[in-house]
């Protein structure tokens, strides 16, 4: 298929369809409405089902049902809607069902606003709903990357029997970039012999997250933790940009990382050896990338469209080796290169060159 | 001749079956089962008419009916 110019939200829908997703359950919320709108038009063309649910709560539970029934299924929403979905997400994680959840983040808390933000990082990477669980979370920075990751996400979800979340800010959903759809590299996927498809010639399958005996539930939890450990060992992804000789490593993901990239170039023009570490997976967090940084690094600067959430993971990864600074805008305000540059200059000003 | 068979170990002793037997042949046994319930039992099986009322109201699928 030739390159097309696509809006982020449409590209999400098309990528999912190309990856074999045939079921979409959702509820309108700005700024991701083009996802359900696109799906309502495209899914019937490919023999799939689009259903606008009565609420985000119902939508995620329809996803639970469809995923349990063995289908490739997704939902998408934005921050307040994702909060409503947390109950269902916890059940999906607890029952180990594969699905894709898109969060096109807007400013919060509460109803917040409709401008882009990254303030759902904690919710996405630290569980979100009740219980000891984790989603597999990708944070793409371009529409092409979002498309590539979505096409892989369904395989990853099936492979780990775990929900995958794409965390995109409103800008990614709304902007337009050229994209092409390429099949991802194949994974060996186990058959879905656990799905509820009717028990012809076999014992009944049960999709369930209830466990009345504490010891059994603990055992289930440790097994989940093993799975997350496996993800941490095998699935971390990141991009390093001009870090080979960097003294200041800036850490940012999503749209913010693209702004920071231009800041890195500006700083380098001014003689400051800056680099960018861009997490692509935010769960599992790419701690391995930090180990690859050179000894020249003197400080870190985390830039986020939040009051400071990912910075905690950066501090854990740096583990006290260097100071970790933070620069962020929140509530839907996008940080400007000028303000980031200023903070970077202040940090490096005090350091000997 | 009609006959009912009670699975003593499944019985929870709720007595619903006793109340619906038209020939009044179901009684609560003085002996208890492993779960600790007094269980329903039939005396004078020859009076059973195989109506299955007892089985129909039994919440625990204790009763099998032969006819």
């Amino acid at each position, binding site marked *: 298929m030739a390159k097309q110019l696509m809006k982020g939200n449409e590209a999400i829908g098309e990528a999912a369809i190309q990856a074999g997703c045939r079921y979409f359950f959702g509820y309108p919320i700005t700024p991701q409405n083009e996802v359900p709108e696109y799906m309502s038009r495209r899914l019937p063309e490919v023999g799939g089902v689009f259903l606008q649910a009565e609420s985000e709560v*119902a939508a995620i539970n329809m996803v639970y*049902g*469809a995923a349990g*029934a063995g289908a490739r299924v997704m939902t998408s929403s934005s921050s307040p809607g994702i909060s409503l979905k947390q109950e269902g997400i916890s059940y999906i994680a607890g029952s180990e069902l594969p699905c894709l959840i898109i969060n096109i983040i807007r400013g919060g808390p509460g109803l917040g606003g409709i401008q882009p933000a990254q303030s759902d990082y904690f919710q996405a990477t630290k569980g979100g709903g009740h219980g000891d669980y984790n989603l597999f979370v990708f944070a793409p920075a371009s529409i092409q990357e979002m498309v590539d990751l979505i096409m892989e996400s369904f395989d990853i979800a099936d492979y780990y029997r775990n929900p995958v979340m794409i965390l995109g800010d409103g800008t990614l959903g709304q902007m337009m970039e050229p994209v092409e759809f390429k099949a991802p590299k194949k994974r060996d996927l186990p058959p879905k012999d656990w799905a509820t*498809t009717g028990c012809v010639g076999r014992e009944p399958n049960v999709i369930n997250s209830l466990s009345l005996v504490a010891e059994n539930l603990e055992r289930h939890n440790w097994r989940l933790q093993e799975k997350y450990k496996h993800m941490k060992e095998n699935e971390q992804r990141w991009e390093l940009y001009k870090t080979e000789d960097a003294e200041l490593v800036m850490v940012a993901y999503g749209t913010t990382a693209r702004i920071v990239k231009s800041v890195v170039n500006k700083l380098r023009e001014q003689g400051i050896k800056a680099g960018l570490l861009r997490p692509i997976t935010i769960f599992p967090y790419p701690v391995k990338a930090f180990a690859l940084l050179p000894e020249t690094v003197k400080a870190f600067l985390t830039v986020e469209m939040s009051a400071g959430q990912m910075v905690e993971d950066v501090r854990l990864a740096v583990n006290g080796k260097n100071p970790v600074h933070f620069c962020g805008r929140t509530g839907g305000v996008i940080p400007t290169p000028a303000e980031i540059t200023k903070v970077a200059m202040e940090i490096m000003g005090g350091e000997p060159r | 001749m009609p006959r009912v068979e009670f699975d003593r170990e499944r019985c929870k002793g709720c007595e619903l079956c006793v109340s619906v037997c038209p020939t009044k042949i179901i009684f609560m046994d003085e002996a208890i089962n492993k779960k600790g319930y007094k269980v329903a039992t039939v005396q004078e099986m020859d009076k059973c008419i195989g109506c299955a009322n007892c089985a129909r109201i039994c919440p625990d699928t204790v009763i099998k*009916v032969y006819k």
Partner: protein
Amino acid sequence: MKVVFERPTALTDKQTHYCPGCTHGIIHRLVAESIDELEVREKTIGVASVGCSVLAYDYFNLDMQQAAHGRAPAVATGIKRVHPDKVVFTYQGDGDLASIGMAEIVHAAARGEKITVIFVNNTIYGMTGGQMAPTSLVGQKTTTSPLGRKAEHCGYPIRMAELLSTLQGAVSVARVSVHDIPNIIKAKKAIKKAFETQIKGEGFAIVEVLSTCPTNWGLPPLDALKWLKENMIPYYPLGEYRTPGEVK
């Protein structure tokens, strides 16, 4: 001599956790008998809800999914849309269906979702210990209405069968009871018909089954049957509220 009555194959041989005399067990069996008679056990997927019947997935001998509180109709929707040729049912109590899950049941019915809903109304929250339900009768004492439900404080019990029968998508709506043999036989017919409605692709079908909770009502099982008959039926009239033929 042959067996004329025994446990249906759509039930596992696992003993239920229900208290002695609780009529959930009867309703489980009626559902299972219907599935057996329609010969659809291997193509049926059940959805267990939250409430006393949460463990229904252990008792039905078929594929089951356990749903979050109130969400069973949404879960069933997801399953049915993936497997339109399968038989999908939910088994829900009054707290689950008429309180926390009101939106899901109303919209599944409004969509005419081709599922079968077994709604067990015993006017009380059994699982959590006898709190007031959306269907608790006025004056009924529960652990959260210790002086009896007062209408001026918490309104009136909800008649789900009547409410849902106003929706065009709900093609089969009935209320039955299991307090005596004739009513158990009628209940069985209604449940089987609700499955047939789905199998024929006619639309959404629900059977509200009046049921007892001897433990939380504080009554011996036999007295509970009598309480149901004398107190519940006058407020929750039995009958068919909607049959497939009526809907144009």
